């Protein structure tokens, strides 16, 4: 048994200030190190990175950003939809669970990136290739997490449904789905990260569009300020997409959000 006797901090200072201070201090140190020539040539200073970002935001940034965003989102959605469908099938028909669970362990161990060259051979240097590989990588975590979540939640809440004599639809909507929400959101979040990162990788070696491609081009042109700016953009894109996921979970209802730990 643990009893937490620590006094809660006063709310006058927001909890994020140490983070903000550290980021500022690091940026300052980074800037000084670059101006003092302490870092290897090619490291772009924060000031020139932001300058490059502002310059790119004046035009060339948006088309690759939109491309990568649409690939990551469509890959995520398609992969998640297939994943959820597989999970429902596997949970609804127990014999399929026993057969699949063994080879799922094997299949998901195969690095999805290894399929990028094969996808290039089959689909060419195209948008389709990108969407296929990012859907593929998004499929696994959603299928596995949703299957585990649905199974556990069905076992847990079966008796509740029996006692309350709930009809099937209400049972699914009010018991099974919220019960599986925590696992499902874990899967969706892993899938989102995977879809974004596979989109960028596919653009780096395959499809000559999107943030991955412009990043490599900037690197080959020795424009390190632009490389740093694009990396910042890709990272922010990840943060924004994660935030979007939280919003979606909250929109699904208070019960879902609470069980998913997003409230």
């Amino acid at each position: 048994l643990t009893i937490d006797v620590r006094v809660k901090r006063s709310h006058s200072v927001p909890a994020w200030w140490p983070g903000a201070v550290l980021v500022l201090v690091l940026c300052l140190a980074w800037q000084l190190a670059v101006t003092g020539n302490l870092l290897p040539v090619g490291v772009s200073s924060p000031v020139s990175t932001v300058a490059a970002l502002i310059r790119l935001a004046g035009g060339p940034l948006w088309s690759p950003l939109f491309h990568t965003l649409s690939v990551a989102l469509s890959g995520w959605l398609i992969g998640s939809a297939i994943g959820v469908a597989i999970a429902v099938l596997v949970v609804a028909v127990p014999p399929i669970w026993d057969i699949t669970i063994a080879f799922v362990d094997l299949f998901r161990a195969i690095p999805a990136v290894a399929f990028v060259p094969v996808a290039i051979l089959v689909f060419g240097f195209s948008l389709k290739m990108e969407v296929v590989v990012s859907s593929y990588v998004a499929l696994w975590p959603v299928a596995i997490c949703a299957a585990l979540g649905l199974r556990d939640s069905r076992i847990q809440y079966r008796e509740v449904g029996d006692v309350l004599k709930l009809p099937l639809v209400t049972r699914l909507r009010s018991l099974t789905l919220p019960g599986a929400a925590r696992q499902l959101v874990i899967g969706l979040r892993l899938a989102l990260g995977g879809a974004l990162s596979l989109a960028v990788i596919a653009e780096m070696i395959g499809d000559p569009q999107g943030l991955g491609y412009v990043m490599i081009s900037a690197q080959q042109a020795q424009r390190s300020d632009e490389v740093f700016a694009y990396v910042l953009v890709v990272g922010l894109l990840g943060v924004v997409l994660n935030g979007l996921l939280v919003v979606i979970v909250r929109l699904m209802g208070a019960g879902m959000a609470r069980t998913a730990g997003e409230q």
Partner: protein
Amino acid sequence: MSADPGQNLAVTRGRRAGRLARPFKILIGLIPIVVLLLICQLLGSGAGQFPKTSEWIQQLGTLGGDGELQSATLSTVKSVLIALAISTVAGAAIGAVVGRSALADRACSPLFNFARVLPVAALIPIAAVIAGYSEGMKVTIVVIAGIWPVLLQTRSATRAIHGVVSDTARTLHLGLWGSVRKIFLPILIPDIIAGVRVGAPMLLVVVIVVEMITGLPGLGAELTTAQENYNAGLAYGLILIISALALLVNIVIAFLERLALLRWPAPVA
């Protein structure tokens, strides 16, 4: 919310997998793959996008005949092992230090969160601009990408250590090294291992990504070369090799985990 959603999954999965006899499970798992390979053999065309399985093996044999396949596999495995060693030690150390101090924890959180969602591949151009393509750069990127599971798991485990434990160390005058060795390390090892379990397969993936994009020697580079030469048979064959390697990593880690948990069992909550 837990520190990293992926870790929970791995931990529960690990526990589940422990109940079934592992070799048996792997054998059942291999059946669909064998079936898939047979279908490829029967339906595949001689050349083109979907070559026969025998063509994959033949192409692998050609590559192996020059010793190129072996040296590529060796350099991929070497990078994974070096990166695994560095990221485990550094991740555990940083995670423990950050987890001990509430202030450091809050200060580092935004940076950690940004680094965690940043796709690994995005780091490659930065590293290339700074250091050019080299073995050191390869390992550096892989460590930066693969350190998070161990770091975050150790951080949350350290945060959960009860105050009485550190008081005990102080009362016994164990000193820094003594308390790390006798108290903190045994408590943290199960969580460090859980982190490694999630992180190790990621390390292999990242090594292959770096090789694919930079062309540094390894299986990833062989794969892109095969694609550029429209050698689909070799590409499929290399996927087979990479998959076997990924499976091997999982099996070895699961074995080491069981071994380590015998010596340092996870505390009962």
